């Protein structure tokens, strides 16, 4: 089961991890983009933290994700604002007003989030984007849950899938976003969006596993 407390803890952990890795994300983005991914995401998640404080005690998991979305779409500034905004918005919508979310619903919510990102950004696998981390992660999550694994270990499998997906972006030529303007020169660089997506899923696995 996944509770509102866990959802809030996940988002808070994400904010901390993004802050911690902001310089790294910005550096990755400076190589193939406009060099603001880390600062943008950190600014967005600082606003997210403020919005969380304003949520009522009986907020649903969906309400938490909706609040995250609204903060990100206004404050991030770059393309990751509407993209991650769509991720959290679609996830919240998929979960509806359930007070507690079971494992299958959480997995379906994450999948809806990924679909939201795809619908917004129109990117495909191997375009060197967030999707290259999110997609393999959710494939691994679904497979682990289908094998009867507990949520914690299934999310660890998802994290490992995302990590591999990030590494696999290095040899890719970008086909979406500013990095695509560079063409062949975008090769041999790790994608910043895939990297932040991995951090978000790693935060989820850590929180659910009590780490």
């Amino acid at each position: 089961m996944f509770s509102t407390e866990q959802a809030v803890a996940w988002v808070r952990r994400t904010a901390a991890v993004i802050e911690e890795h902001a310089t790294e994300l910005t550096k990755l983005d400076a190589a193939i983009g406009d060099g603001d991914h880390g600062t943008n995401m950190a600014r967005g998640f600082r606003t997210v933290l403020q919005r969380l404080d304003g949520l009522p005690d009986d907020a649903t998991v969906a309400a938490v994700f909706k609040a995250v979305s609204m903060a990100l779409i206004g404050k991030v500034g770059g393309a990751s604002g509407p993209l991650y905004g769509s991720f959290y918005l679609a996830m919240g919508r998929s979960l509806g007003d359930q007070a507690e979310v079971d494992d299958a619903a959480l997995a379906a919510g994450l999948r809806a989030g990924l679909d939201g990102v795809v619908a917004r950004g129109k990117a495909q696998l191997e375009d060197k984007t967030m999707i290259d981390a999110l997609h393999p992660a959710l494939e691994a999550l679904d497979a682990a849950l289908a094998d009867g694994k507990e949520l914690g270990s299934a999310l660890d499998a998802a994290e490992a899938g995302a990590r591999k997906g990030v590494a696999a972006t290095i040899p890719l030529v970008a086909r979406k976003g500013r990095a695509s303007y560079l063409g062949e020169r975008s090769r041999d660089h790790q994608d910043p969006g895939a990297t932040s997506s991995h951090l978000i899923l790693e935060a989820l696995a850590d929180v659910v596993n009590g780490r």
Partner: protein
Amino acid sequence: MTVGLVIVSHSAKVAEGVVELAGQMAEEVRVLAAGGADGGEIGTSATKIAAAIEAADSGDGALVLVDLGSAVLSARMAIEELVGDEYRERVRISEGPLVEGAVIGAVQASTGSSLDEVDQAATRAATMRKAKD
């Protein structure tokens, strides 16, 4: 009233400057700036764009002019998720260039043209001759 315009740029100053230019040509047209992220930082904000669309649309629709990158994604997010249903049906994102499209679109709007006509005029601004005879 007339079709309204929304100017979306990563820079709040650029958006405000374009509003100033377009307004000079067509005072009676609602031209709204939606530049920068919510705190004024370089970037775009879907929430800011949605508010500008609702303010620009007096019933005849609104044309959204964008600069690049996340401006398009934020504008799409604003239209698909944030504006009221009645606005969604009469708002469009322009293919036209930000500055020229805004000026020419505003002039077209000031004549009482439809959203289609304003949209086409702003698009044509992309191929307008400037320096060559």
